[in-house]
Every structure is written in C-alpha cells, then in structure tokens.
C-alpha cells in the first residue's frame, strides 16, 4: 500500500500547501508548487511500488503483488508523471492545486486497480479512479464542451459501474465468495449456469466501457475532444492501462473456467466469444470511423477504439501467452497517446489545435514537436522500429499461436493486420499536415504561423516519451522479460 499512501498523502499535502501559502501568489507559481509536490509524490510512489517487491497475496488476499502489479503500477506512475509535467507547463487552470490533487487521487485508484484481487477492492479502486476522472474531464469550467464531456463520461461511467456491481453481486451469489481464486475454484467445479452468463456479460459491459471498446465507445470521442488536454491524456493512457490490468486479472485468474475457447471455429462458448465480438467491432468501427474525422482529438479517440480492439485480442491471448504482450502493448500505446496529447497541449499555448489542419506547418513552427509527434503517431500506426510495431507483432503472434488461422482468435489477428493498413492512412493524414503542408495564415499576425516555444519541462518529458518508444521498440525484451 506504500504507493497509494504516498499518492494520497501527496494529494493532501498539495491541497494544504496551496491553502497555506497559495493565497497571495500568482496562478502560475501555485501551479508550479502543486506540480512539484505532486511529482515528488509520484516519485515516492514509484519507489514504493518498486520496493514492495513480489510478495504475492497480501492483506488476506485482497491485494496481490506480482509481476503484473509491479509493471502496471510503474507504468501508470510514469504516465501520470508525464501528464502532471505537461499540465504544469501548459495548463491554464483556475484551481491548480485541486487539479493536481485529483490527478493524484486518480493515480492512487489506478495503482490500487493494478493490485486488486478481490471483487470489492476492485470495485472501490475502479470507482476511486473513475470519480476522479469525471471531475478531471469537466475541470475546464470556461468551456461548455468540457462540461459536456464530463457529463457524458459520468453518465456512461455510472451506468457501467452499475452493471459491474450487479455482475459482481450475481457472481458473489453464485459462488459465495469475492476472492478471485475461490471464485475460480468454484466455477471450475460447477457446470456453467445461465445466471453466470448474465453476470459475465454485465462485467464485460463495464470492461467494454473502460477499454472504450465498441459498442461501448460512445463517450470516447466527446471526452477526448472536450476535456482539458491533460485530463484527456490521463483518461486515454493511464486509465486504460489500469483498466486492462484490472479486467485481465478478473477475467483470467477469476473467471478463467468460464472462458470457453475461441482458438478453433467450433470452440466452447464462454466470455472469450463476447470479448472476440467486442474486439472485432472495435477494430472495424474504430478504423473505419477514424477515416472520416477532421478533428484531431476525435481522430485520436477513434484510433483509441481501434487500439482497444487489439488490446481485447491481447486479453484473449493472455490466457495462453501470459500478460506480457498485453502489458507491452497497452503501456507503449499509453506513452504514445500521452505524447500526442502533450504535443497538442503545447501547441494550444500559442494557437488553437482542434482540427487536423491546425497542425499545418508544424515543421516550421517547432521541429522538436514535429519530430516527437512523428514518433508518437508512427508508433501508433505500428511502424518499426518503434514500440507500437512490436506491440502489435507480439499480440498478433500470441493470438495466432492459439490455434493458427483455424479459429476466431486467428481471424481477428489477420483482420487487425489488414486494418493496420487502413489505419496508416489516417495517421499519415495527421503527419501530412505536420510535416508536409505549409501553414496558411489569413493575416500576418495570425498565430498559426508563429514559432512555438516549448517549455523546457514539457520538452524533456516529450523527448523522454519518444525515447521510451524507440528504446522499447528496439529492445522489447526489457519489458517482456518481466513476465
């Protein structure tokens, strides 16, 4: 619990400091103070996550400290650190300390989600994270879009939480336990009942929401578009990573006996079949809808939906290949997404950045941002030697190893490979604006042609994120070896 404690104490400390000393200072210095304190808390949490080691089940089985927990916690903390730093140098907030504190609360929720191995703890952790994220989505009170994003996110999220809780209560009723391994043992010993199917479907609805998988994706484009950039970045990256870890732990160690089989065409029914359907729907809908977008953030949202399809494929394969491919994929995806949002945030300091065409001429305005953006986007597109490529490669390899092309898992992998050629189109549309098209200014004072100054701390984290993508792409064993 050290990381969670560090984060919560850090959050409270941020608030206290701001109350005590922030009164008479400028917004900017209050933000810096909050971000520095928050970063210290995140670093302390990283140390805590690292030093708590691989102790196995702790707190009477409520939490588990295994490789997946450690990797997810560190991954989430890195993503939160990047988000915080970007917020510090780019956000114009009226309540900086509250923003940082809520980011820290959300992060505490994420690290708890990474370790939860009991239905109740899982639910509480998820809610801690979700409630914080709802607030973050609506943090920009000056923009109606932000309020819309928060409301949509909250309504969908609340509904999916209700489904999840209902599903959990049914599972508790069926198995008499909230411990994952006892649930698993019970399910293995008893034939599946229709009620179990209902319960699993309800859990998967909440999973679909968290992963932004079609058809539970409707919140994603609006939230990505309307929420403040740093909040959107956190929702798109760290929240995804924690959510995938939570659900892959629920599904495989918990409900594994009800998985069924999708490696052959005539496999046994189970929740895998539903996940496979969600995956196919996300791949198709995300990639095809992204083709039609003209708003950069909505494009990123649809690309996130498409990526969710691959992540679900990773969940399917995780039963056989372990969590390594899935974690690698989600983590590197998170880094690339946080980076892309970071670039948007830095641009927005100078000129608006909503439409894809707002990127026009970026290569003249800031070569650094252009280079970083190219790395993030090409990683999302899955171009080697960047990490996004190997992520796809290892997930597809794991899915095909389930049964070759004899079953839905293999077909999904083939579908995803072909759709990656479709995806390259819309990623290149982004890069075309940034790297090829010259800026078009209506007047000479138009900010769209001004050079962009990148704050030093933002530059450092953006380059750091780009480096992670290159290094992990070249040496994926660094991550895979953990599992």
């Amino acid at each position, binding site marked *: 619990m050290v990381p969670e404690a560090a984060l919560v104490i850090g959050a409270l400390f941020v608030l206290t400091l701001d109350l005590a000393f922030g009164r008479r200072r400028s917004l900017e210095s209050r933000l810096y103070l909050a971000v520095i304190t928050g970063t210290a808390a995140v670093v302390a949490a990283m140390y805590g996550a690292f030093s708590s080691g691989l102790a196995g089940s702790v707190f009477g089985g409520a939490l588990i400290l295994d490789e997946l927990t450690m990797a997810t916690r560190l991954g989430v903390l890195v993503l939160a650190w990047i988000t915080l730093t970007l917020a510090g140098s780019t956000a114009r907030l009226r309540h900086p300390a509250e923003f940082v504190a809520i980011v820290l609360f959300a992060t505490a929720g994420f690290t708890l989600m990474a370790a939860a191995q009991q239905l109740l703890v899982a639910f509480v952790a998820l809610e801690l994270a979700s409630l914080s994220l709802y607030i973050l989505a609506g943090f920009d009170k000056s923009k109606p879009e932000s309020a819309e994003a928060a409301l949509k996110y909250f309504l969908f999220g609340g509904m999916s939480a209700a489904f999840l809780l209902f599903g959990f209560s049914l599972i508790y009723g069926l198995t008499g336990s909230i411990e994952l391994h006892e649930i698993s043992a019970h399910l293995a010993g008893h034939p599946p009942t229709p009620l179990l199917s209902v319960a699993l479907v309800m859990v998967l609805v909440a999973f679909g929401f968290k992963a932004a998988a079609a058809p539970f994706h409707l919140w994603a484009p609006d939230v990505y578009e309307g929420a403040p950039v740093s909040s959107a970045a956190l929702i798109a990256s760290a929240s995804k990573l924690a959510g995938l870890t939570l659900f892959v732990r629920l599904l495989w160690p918990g409900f594994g006996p009800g998985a069924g089989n999708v490696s052959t065409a005539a496999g046994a029914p189970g929740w895998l079949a539903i996940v496979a359907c969600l995956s196919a729907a996300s791949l198709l809908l995300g990639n095809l809808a992204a083709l039609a977008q003209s708003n950069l953030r909505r494009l990123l949202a649809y690309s996130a939906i498409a990526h969710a399809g691959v992540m679900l494929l990773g969940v399917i394969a995780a039963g056989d290949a372990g969590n390594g491919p899935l974690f690698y994929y989600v983590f590197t995806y998170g880094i690339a997404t946080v980076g892309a949002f970071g670039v948007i945030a830095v641009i927005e300091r100078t000129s608006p950045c909503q439409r894809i065409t707002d990127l026009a001429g970026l290569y003249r305005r800031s070569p650094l941002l252009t280079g970083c953006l190219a790395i993030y986007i090409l990683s999302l597109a899955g*171009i080697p030697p960047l990490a996004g490529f190997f992520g796809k490669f290892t997930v597809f390899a794991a899915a095909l*190893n389930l049964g070759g092309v004899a079953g839905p898992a293999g077909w999904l992998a083939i579908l995803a490979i072909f759709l*990656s050629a479709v995806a390259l189109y819309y990623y290149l549309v982004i890069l075309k604006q940034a790297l*090829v098209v010259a800026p078009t200014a209506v007047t000479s004072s138009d900010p769209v042609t001004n050079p962009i100054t990148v704050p030093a701390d933002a530059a450092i984290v953006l380059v750091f994120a780009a480096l992670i993508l290159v290094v992990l792409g070249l040496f994926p064993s660094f991550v895979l070896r953990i599992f």
Partner: protein
Amino acid sequence: MNALPLTIYVSFAGALLALAAGTRSHAAARWIALVSALTSFALTLLAASSFAPSPGLQTIIDLPWIAELGIRYHLAADGISLTLLVLTGLAATVGVLFSWNIEHRVGEFFALYLTLIGGVFGVFLSADAFTMFVFYEIAIVPKYFLIANWGSPVTREHAAMKLVLYSFAGSALVLAGLLWANAAAVAHGSVSSFSLNDLAAAATHFSRGEQIGLFALVFTGFAVLAGMFPFHTWAPTGHVAAPTAASMLLAGVVMKLGAYGCLRVAMPLFPVGLAFWQPTIAALAIIGIFYAGFIALVQDDFKFVIGYSSVSHMGFVLLGLAAANATAVAGAVLQMFSHGVIAGLLFAVVGRMVYERTHTRQLADLRQLPLHRLLPFAALTFVLAGLASMGMPGFSGFPAELTILIGVWKTSPVWALFAGGGILVAAAFTLRAIQVSFFGSIPLSRVVASGSELTHAGSLHHYESITLAEKVGTALLLAATVYIGLKPDVLLDWIIPALQSPFMQAALKGGSL
C-alpha cells in the same frame, strides 16, 4: 564481407547527421549524404572484391534479439544479396548526385533518403524474417514524405498516399504470412523462430493447404512492391510524382526489394505453394509485361512512359522467378541489377535533365523542341539508356533478358514465346519515346520563329547546362550497364553458386514439382 552491415549503420548515421546539419547549411547536408552514400558504395565494392562465391548465406552477425519469440538479429549475405547491395550502393550514390540541386528542406530530404537506403541495405542483408520485415517497413514510410514534400506539385499527395498504402498493404500480407508460418511451425512442434532457415525447415512439415495459403500471402505481399500485375498501379503514379532521386530509387532499388522478398522468403519457405501458384504467377507476369508495355506505348507524359516501362521490365523478373529453375532465377537477379541501373538512367534523364530545364513532361510539348540540339548530353544518354532498356547486346539488359528467356524456355516454351514478344513491345515504346521526345520533327529555326509559350526565344538558349554532378552520375550508371553487358559473368559467378545452396534449391525444386 564483415564490413557490409556498416552500410546500414552508415546510412542511418548519415540520415541523422544530414538532418542536424541541414538546419544550418544546405551544402553540408548534401556532402554528408554524398559521403555516406559513397562510403556504403565503397563498402559493397570492397566486399565484392574479396567475395568468394559459395553456396549458402555467409553469416556476418547473429545475435539474440528478442529471446521471448526466438527472434535473432541475423545478418548474412550471399551472391544474390551482394549483387543487390552493390546496386543499392550505386543507386544511392547516383541518386544523391541527381538531387544536388534540391534547395527546399535539404536536410530533411537527405535524412529521409538515407533512411530509405539504410532500410534497403538492411533487407538485402537479413537472414531472419523479423529483421528483414523491420528493415522493409523502415524503407516504406520515408517514401511518403519524399514524394509528398518534394514531388511534382499537383499529384504528389495523392500519389504518395497511394504508393505507401499499396506498399503497406503488401507488407501487411507479408506480416500475416510470417506470423501464421511461425504459429504453424510452433503447432508442428518447432521452437518459435523467425530465422529463414528454421522457418524453411519447419515448413516442410506443413500441410499442402497451409503451404498454398502461406505462399499466396507472402508472395503477393512482396510482389505488390515488385509491381506485379494487377497490383502495379502504385508504381507509375508514384514514380511520376516522385522527385528524380526518389523515382530512381523507387524503380531502381525499392521494386527489387519486393522481388528479393519473393525470391528469398516466399519461394524457399513454401515450395509446395510455389508449385501450385507457378502458372498463375507466370500468367500475371506475362500480362504485366504486355499490359504495361502497351500502356507505355500510348502515354502523353514522358515520365509515365518510363514508369510503365519499369512495370513491364519487372514482369520479366517475376517471370524468371516463376519459372523457378537455376537459369531463369539467375537471369531474374541479373535483370534486377540491370533494370535498377537502366531505370535510374531513364528517370535521371526525364526527371532531372529534361523536366527541370524545360518544365514540361508532355511528349506533345517536347516534340516542339529540338531537344537533341538543346540538350545533346541528355539525348545521348537517353538513346544509350533506351538501347540498354530494349535489350541491345553490349548493355546489361541483353544478357539479363536472354538468360531469363533461356531459363523460362526450360520450364515452358510457351511462356518464353510470349515473353519474347514482350521484348518487341519494349522496343516499340522505347523507340517512340526517343523519337518523339528528343528528335522532334520541327526544325530549330521554326521553333524560335513561332515563339510559343514554351519556347520563347530567350529561354531556348538558356537551359542550364548539364552539371558536373549529373555527368558523373550518368557516367557511373552507363559504365555499370556496359560493364555488366560485356561481362555478365561477373555477377552470374556470384549468383549461380548462391542458388546451389540447399535453402535456395528448395525453391527451385518447388518449381519442378
């Protein structure tokens, strides 16, 4: 031999340096690019001079890379790869010379250019399918930016996107095939590995259906890049829209990546599939030779003539591969080299020497100009390159196409007869292009007098003279095509032993199943 991997690293390092230097000095970026390309070229020649032909790939580096999936960083070379490495070094050097006059975003241009070159070197050196695929994709993306940024204004964005999506769709097919092959190998009890040798060994246990499906995926994926009919349409539009150096590289080297992938991966790994698909590939190759040739015959745009001629000539390469006997495949590799050089020459004349001076590529406009008087060097070069392209003895096209035809005859005389007809079509469209573009029937005096928009009297005599860089580049390419035309044995002595290795023999056996 052991220095060959340096070609990859030198190219990538050159790319970074050119990018860094380009912000300050255009000249520095150019010289960095030239030094980098020349170093690679010298390294390939050095390796060639001490090369002892032997069957099988000679391993240069073999390191574990991603142990979890059995992926190794395995670089190796044999006579086939060496032939193509020399070609790449030559084309890279000449390409830099022909882009010496680029003034817009010079550092970025050469950075992308050298990245592409590094990827190409990597593909030709890889003996592990994963390593090869990584380099293959590295070679794809720069093409988009090269064409979209520096291509001809109207069509460049469309053409760049089309070209890259075709290439990427092809590589998606390859990726699907490789992953499926790996999964099937694991299912048949092998350890997960992407080494070409291991995959080939495992593939002998695959069912006939698996072999046929896998061959179709991998071969089609690579053949897209080789310009196989009906997946060739990216090639003419892409070549035409690209800046000269990129056209030279695309037609000269990148299309060879596709053919090399077919030869190195698809054929040896899945010989049963090859046997099944052999007639189809041959038919598509012959259709490609004629179809592209006939289209080239009626083009109005000079560069489109060359673009389609590339597709037509690559048809010979694919036909040689489809025949799958030692002679035909050796001829195909020779044709890869030969076409790489000749296509480079043709694009250099059309894109750099003619277009950048006359600012038109329309044959109807060029006909109005007595170009043989105005640009005699370009005219001479184009005539020589055209002769080489038609397969005139004394140039490299002749031994290459002849070897292919002899080999194809062994497999099927009917195919050889058809393909022989294709040479006539090539002669027809090349002669037409020479005649119309350079030897327009209107005499100089009348042109000056008519004072049309294109030829207003002042500009006629003010065509910038052919620069030294262009002359050196032309001389290098001409020397290569004449040298190989007179002494094809130099390359065949490398290629034929390479085909004797058990690995490549599997491919050739597939052809006679």
